């Protein structure tokens, strides 16, 4: 109740998303991605992050949205959850803000085409800005990915 969360705000298309700072490892510019065959379509491949091989996924593809072309502002946000390290390709990485947990509402069933289970909630901040808080555990859910891969194969 009333806790302050530090959140990194990034943009995907027209929407703004947030991830807690302590889950974010680093934010990098786009670097050459090596394709890994026989993986789900939104898994773009792997990159060389200072000597460590890190897989990267396209979040829009993960959410079933249409993918967009990367731009100058596109970034890779590397998050770490449990023992998984994964990079998200995002359209822009904007800000670090403090959010009061009280202002996070549970999301209605369908919000902007993204399935609700990937979200922790929707936060209001600033003037009329909505921040979609991501549920990383669901986003990085491996079992679902295996299912997806089997479907594609």
């Amino acid at each position, binding site marked *: 109740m009333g806790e302050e969360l530090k959140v990194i705000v990034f943009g995907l298309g027209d929407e703004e998303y947030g991830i807690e700072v302590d889950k974010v490892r680093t934010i990098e510019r786009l670097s050459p991605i*090596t394709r890994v065959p*026989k*993986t789900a379509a939104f898994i773009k491949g*792997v990159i060389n992050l200072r*000597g460590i*091989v890190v*897989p990267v996924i396209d979040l829009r593809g993960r959410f079933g949205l249409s993918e967009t072309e990367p731009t100058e502002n596109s970034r890779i946000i590397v998050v770490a959850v449990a023992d*998984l*390290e994964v990079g998200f390709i995002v359209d822009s990485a904007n800000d670090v803000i403090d959010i009061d947990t009280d202002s996070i509402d549970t999301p209605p069933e369908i919000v902007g085409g993204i399935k609700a289970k990937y979200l922790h909630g929707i936060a209001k901040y600033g003037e009329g800005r909505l921040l979609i808080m991501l549920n990383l555990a669901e986003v990085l859910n*491996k079992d679902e990915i295996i299912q997806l891969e089997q479907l594609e194969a």
Partner: protein
Amino acid sequence: MDMNAYLSMFIDESNDHLQALNENLLLLESEPEDLTIVQNIFRSAHTLKGMAATMGFEDLASLTHEMENVLDLVRNNKLKMDSFIFDTLFKGLDALEAMVQDIINGGTGKADVTSIVASLQIILKSDYKPENASAAAAAAAAAAAPAAAAPAGSKSSLLDEFQHSILMQSIESGLRVYHIQVSLIESCMLKAARAYMVFDLIERNGDIVKSDPSVQELEQEKFDRQFTIYAISEMTEDELKQNINDISEIESVIVTPLDQESLTMLEAKAAAGLSQYAEAESTAAKQQASAAAAPALAPAASAAAKPSAKAASTNGGAVTRTIRVDIERLDTLMNLFSELLIDRVRLEQLASEIKRNDLMETVEHMSRVSSDLQNIVLKLRMVPVDSVFNRFPRMVRDLSKSLDKKIDLIITGAETELDRTVIDEIGDPLVHLLRNSIDHGIETVNERIAAGKPETGSIYLRAFHSGNHVFIEVEEDGKGINRDKVLQTAIKKGIVSEEKAQTLTDQEVNMLIFAAGFSTADQISDISGRGVGLDVVRSKITSLGGNVTVDSAMGKGTKFSVQLPLTLSIISAMLIKLGSEKYAIPLSSIVETSIIKKEQILNVHGNKMIEFRNTVIPLVSLSKVLDSPDFNEEQEAETEIVVIRKGDKWAAIMIDDFIGQSEIVLKSLGSYLKSSKAVSGATILGDGYVALIIDPNALIK
């Protein structure tokens, strides 16, 4: 008191001692009369007890204490070893190991050892009294005494290094060095006084470097009539002789001036005299002992053995000096070094592009140095397999006892080294293979005699290097794999169909035993028979990058052969291009590279094949397997191929083009992407590009 700092030391050292205890107990079993082994065991147990007590592990200390008591009786000859005592001691050892394991896992090391302690106390109370023990011991002691007295002189006549160098330097600088031998008359009463007078005389005009016997012994008159002195003196030889003779009650004086040659000769004689003495003592002791009762042999033999044992142990101590290193540090070192390797490749590339001489020279030198570094770093992680093999003799002994079979375990090549991660993982599969051999391979004593074999079965455990691999073989002279029985069971369990079964070669039939769920054992024993083990063994070994094969002849025996890669993280690979993408294929799997024409491709039963060295092998399209976005070999008239092998199976992989051979650093893909089958890892190339490493085994069915 913060014990945590000492805990890891305690664990390491306890493990060493427990290992030594195990080995020595086994040795003692085959030579129960050898008291030096008992001494070693006693020492290990004693040290262990001290450490445990200091760290506050009460149960550990008290159990060791009881074992010590038993061992004390044995080494003082009040108790003879028999199989009950051995079994109890082994049980005690097991309990100790369990307690240490508990401590390693963060526990307190407490355990209920009351039953073992009770057994030990029974042994202590029912004193086995060797009847003549005390009398014989006294006789042996008496025999030892005069033998000890006589050569007391020759023993201490050896110069130590310091004295030797003083004498040598004095000779070199032109001073007079003498070896003086003085004999007092028989009826001399005050020997010490006379000796003192001789010393006094010499020291007035020079220095005494060494006297034999020592000064204390001379003062206490612990000598017969003779004594010798090494001295530096200003007097001439004749003067010296004259003056000493002038002292009353001196019978004779022999003065020998020394130069370098004679000094060394004199020492050699003294040393020879000493070893002769040791031999004489042992033969004398042996003669005495054979006259006395059997138990007396032990103390006399041990008395003679002690000096030789001491000599042996001092030799052993000087051999290797080691240092304990935290594994994490080694891993960090490895990682950092891998980074360096990547940069080196990059520099080499850049240097060849920029084409500046001094840059190229420096880079070349750096390459050479880093190659050497690479070898050393890789070797750092190498550990002798002995650390895995050393628990096997005990296991074989216990198992063969419980199954009532006679088995000899012969280990060769225990000093062969493996990467430490492999060592950690290879233990369990080997245990299973050994248990298999003991349970299913070696027959019972009766069966063996009936088959005309020696009643003791042999299991050979070998480790050796060959090429880029380490091979570990488990071979036994048991009953071999029964082809028919294996086929029957395989058909019954649905592992292979009847028709297929007819076409299998002997080798293939043998490999069936590795199938999941396979077991020909009629009963499930505690040891094996559940049909789970060999399958797990094979997958474990494959996950380490190795493979396992089996050779067998019915009635003669079976041999399991495990092949493992030497190091895990840096491998040689062939870099290939597939359209715009680069991939790496481990060199160890590659047989050959070649180019084939489209016309050479044969279509057999819907599968593409080519003729290669008198056999037909399958052709695999890498672009299809990897869903290449921009390469399709169908459009080419000629295609480059890489021929790979997995055990006996071969296949040809169609690729776009070769880039070259390179040493690459294996990087894990991480847990997120584990499920990729054709790809076993990644590597970072010189230009920073991530290339995926293809798993050839996945391409060969």
